[in-house]
């Protein structure tokens, strides 16, 4: 039964990856839709970022003093000015670790 579930889940997931690439003709999409598609990254990723920063493991809002919030702010500022993916991630992690290992001890 578990194997069955994995395979069906795999097919569903693969379909979501493949459908728009292989089955849909781009001519079918109007210019308006194509314009809106420019916003896909800006529309998808905040929905992963915000809960990751503002919720704890139990799905509750974190306190305003939560280290994740400050780590995210540092990453945001560093990323904005450096335009570097690695600098964004590393600065966020380091500032987060600095807070939890040094300031909160």
């Amino acid at each position: 039964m578990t194997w069955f579930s994995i395979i069906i889940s795999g097919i569903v997931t693969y379909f979501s990856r493949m459908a728009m690439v292989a089955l849909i003709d781009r001519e079918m999409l109007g210019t308006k839709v194509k314009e809106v598609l420019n916003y896909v990254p800006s529309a998808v990723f905040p929905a992963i970022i915000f809960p990751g920063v503002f919720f704890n493991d139990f799905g509750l809002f974190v306190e305003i003093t939560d280290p994740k919030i400050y780590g995210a702010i540092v990453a945001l500022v560093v990323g904005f000015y450096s335009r570097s993916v690695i600098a964004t991630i590393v600065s966020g992690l380091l500032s987060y670790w600095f807070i939890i290992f040094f300031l909160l001890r």
Partner: protein
Amino acid sequence: MLSKSKIFFKGTVAVLPHMLSVIPFGIITGAIGVELGFDPILVYATSLIIFGGASQIIFMQLLSGGASSLVAITSVGVINSRHLLYGAVLSEYLEKLSFIKKLFISYFIVDQGFAESNKYIKQNKNLSNPHYYVLGTGVTLWFCWQLSTIIGIILGSFIPEELGLKFAIPLTFLAIIVNDLRKLDHVFVMLVSGFASLILFNAPFKSYIILSPLVALIAAFIMLRFKK
């Protein structure tokens, strides 16, 4: 002009920074599966067959918690439906490929790979073989994901939980969109999506992951109308 292998390699390099979140996340996924009591082969099969981080964890958690297969499959489908949006964007660059090649390359469409490919190809409009960039990002992420889940399955979660490496996940996605904060229209769409996700977080089947982007895209559509 860049050769195909050079374009592929550029894609590989572009996703390397994301390994800071992908590899720990993969190890955790493998380790959680074993901890939940699944056969190691089954745990690995989720990486190979489903190949989608968060959805694999939720899939295994649901099944081990006694949820029905239907609930588990539905959750995976809902969480992974965001790939439809990635496909819609990438289809512009993959249009000229044969049907078989499209079927093949689709398997490798992943969040970070999509984002980096989209960024690079937009900046290099005259790129002759953009699909090699997509493949470079996707195959690299695939390989590291497979390897790291195997490591997690064998070694368990040896990464100390105190490190809070889960926090690397929002950071890796922040790194992807941070540059677009220069554009007010994008900032607007991001805020709509972000706040929608906080409000919709407890919607069934983790559907906030697809509902929030849809709300944000509708907002973008309305915004574009007013701009004209």
